[in-house]
């Protein structure tokens, strides 16, 4: 009677969760403040807000802290939180022309109305580790800021808005007219209220990508850029900035400004296609929460590849792309293989043994079938 039945499952998982919480706190370093994460790891916060599909920097910072820096876990926590929030209403449609821009560029033209505004970017930095950062302190921070602003030249403030680069192409009638979105209340499909059915409307695809996992989107867009696709993209315009959010209140009247959200927008111009005689450019569009250029550009490329009239490659197959880019879904399913599967395995074992027995009883050396 050597075998003892497995008991204590409840306790075991309590302890496992407890151990996880302990791992993060066992060291002697000072507890991380949520504001530190929000201010100093702001790009992680931006990424997690986008994948969590809720604009809430404090909560995203909290999630990152709780998840010990795992962005998939953090995005998951935000999604679960989001699911508890009731829908109060809908914002007004908002043109990104009204964005308060902090970065804006175009690769399609050397110079653009309003100018190329580089903003804060890692694009031109040398990726050399800065060991000075090992020895940081509030005093050093203060001294740095003081020096930075000392004798800084006054320049003209940025204009309130910048015209859209693609408008240039539109005015010359060089851009294919976009399809009008169809769908539910407000005319737009709501992915969080209905599940996707294929073929999906463009607004559906864009929503799915806006909350998609950055790495997954990059993977598929990269496959297109490398050759599993032929759209030959050029960035018409990339913008990062703060978009005003307006809602109509129940008491009527003009829509009211309730806040602003930081977003990244990419408009990618793709190879021309002939439509009603005259050749034109087509547009790929991407928009996501926070400062996340890789994601916005990948979105824009996939937006375009999924419109291929004769889909052959993975990035052109709308169902393939949209089924596999949600980080919360993919991570959950990947993790689920760790759950017990012994009943189904037992069933497979039974079948394997049976079919092996059947093939072994066949005449040796013969093969009549």
């Amino acid at each position, binding site marked *: 009677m*050597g*075998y003892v*039945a*497995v*008991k*204590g*499952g*409840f306790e*075991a*998982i309590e302890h496992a969760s407890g151990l996880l919480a302990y791992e993060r706190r066992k060291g002697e370093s000072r507890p991380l403040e949520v504001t530190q994460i929000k201010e100093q790891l702001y790009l992680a916060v931006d990424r997690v807000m986008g994948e969590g599909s809720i604009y809430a920097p404090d909560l995203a910072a909290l999630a990152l802290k709780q998840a010990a820096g795992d962005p998939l876990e953090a995005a*998951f*926590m935000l*999604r*679960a939180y*989001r*699911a*508890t*929030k*009731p*829908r109060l209403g809908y914002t007004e449609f908002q043109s990104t022309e009204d964005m308060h821009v902090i970065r804006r560029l175009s690769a399609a033209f050397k110079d653009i109305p309003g100018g190329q505004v580089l903003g804060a970017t890692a694009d031109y930095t040398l990726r050399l580790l800065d060991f000075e950062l090992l020895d940081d302190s509030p005093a050093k921070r203060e001294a740095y800021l003081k020096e930075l602003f000392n004798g800084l030249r006054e320049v003209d403030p940025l204009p309130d808005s910048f015209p859209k680069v693609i408008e240039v192409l539109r005015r010359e009638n060089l851009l294919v007219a976009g399809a009008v979105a169809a769908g539910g209340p407000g005319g737009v499909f709501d992915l*969080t*209220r*209905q*599940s*996707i*059915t*294929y*073929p999906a409307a463009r607004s559906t695809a864009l929503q799915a990508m806006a909350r998609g996992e950055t790495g997954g989107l990059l993977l598929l867009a990269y496959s297109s850029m490398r050759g599993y696709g032929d759209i030959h993209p050029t960035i018409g315009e990339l913008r990062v900035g703060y978009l005003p959010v307006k809602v109509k209140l129940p008491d009527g009247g003009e829509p009211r400004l309730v806040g602003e959200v930081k977003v990244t927008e990419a408009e990618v111009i793709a190879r021309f296609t002939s439509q009603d005689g005259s050749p034109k450019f087509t547009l790929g569009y991407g928009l996501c929460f926070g400062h996340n250029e890789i994601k916005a550009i990948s979105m824009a490329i996939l937006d375009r590849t999924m419109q291929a009239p004769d889909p052959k490659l993975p990035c052109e197959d709308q*169902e393939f792309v949209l*089924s596999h880019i949600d980080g*919360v*879904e993919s*991570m*959950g*399913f*990947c*993790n*689920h293989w760790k*759950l*017990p*599967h*012994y*009943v*189904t395995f*037992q*069933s*497979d*074992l*039974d*079948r*394997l043994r*049976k*079919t092996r027995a*059947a*093939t072994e009883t066949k005449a040796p050396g013969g093969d009549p*079938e």
Partner: protein
Amino acid sequence: MKLATWTAAAHRTASLRYNFAFIDEGAKREIRRKILKAVAIPGYQVPFASRELPIARGWGTGGLQITLAIIGPEDLLKVIDQGCDSSVNAVNIKKFVGRVTGVNITTVTREATIIQTRHRIPEEKMSGEQILVLQVPFPEALRTVEPSELETRRMHAEADYSRMWLYLYEDVVKYREISIGARYPVTVNGRHIMDPSPIPRWDIPKLHLAETLYLFGAGREKRIYAVPPHTRVEPLEFEDVKFRVENFQGAACHRCGSAATYLDEIIDDVSGRRIFLCSDTGNCDLRVGQRQESKCGSATPES
């Protein structure tokens, strides 16, 4: 129960963080509407929005959303995974539902009003007053032969199941048997081919003309489907190659002695030999209890 009684029973202390059963009323309504459609079209997969929950996708969020949408304070909930009440997945889910509803939990199958399960149907026959909610990883039975949802929708629409039959036929040609273990495809109500979830073949006959309602939830894939009571559920088979349940070669449960239940095979780490135990631990407890009763109970022999 009067409204006043409900209000009194529902009185909780100050902090109002979560709605009863966690998900908001709009989400519940959508799930409820879809459940009704699923019951009206047995075996057909109804798409639903599928909210995120604090438990990961792939870990039973579909079954959980169904449970959360139907459960009330008076329900008695049982949760099992692989037949076991204390398996990690079952415990996790029980913790969560208990926390957001305050319902009582049981391990006794016949007492439960709602049973949520992963990959097994309880051994004891369930009644018309009970509901079994199954967690489903792959709602589409035809996915084995066709990766595209667009195409499988068409196949179900036109009842064009030839490719599934061909797949089974090729199996028979290769192995003289249908080699599918769990997730054995069935025809429901003579019309739709359905994936019964990864339950063993042992459990398939329990679906046919049953007393109880079966609800299936796939959270990640966003599908709900159902088998109402008194509905035909027939495993796909050929006239000369019939559907067969698992064969334990005469083995019996090491704990309760049953040779009539689905068994888990375990390698005893002391002796190294194989022993078998009931997969359905609640049922095993019942049998052990009955055996003990008959041993030290009545003086008269049992019939």
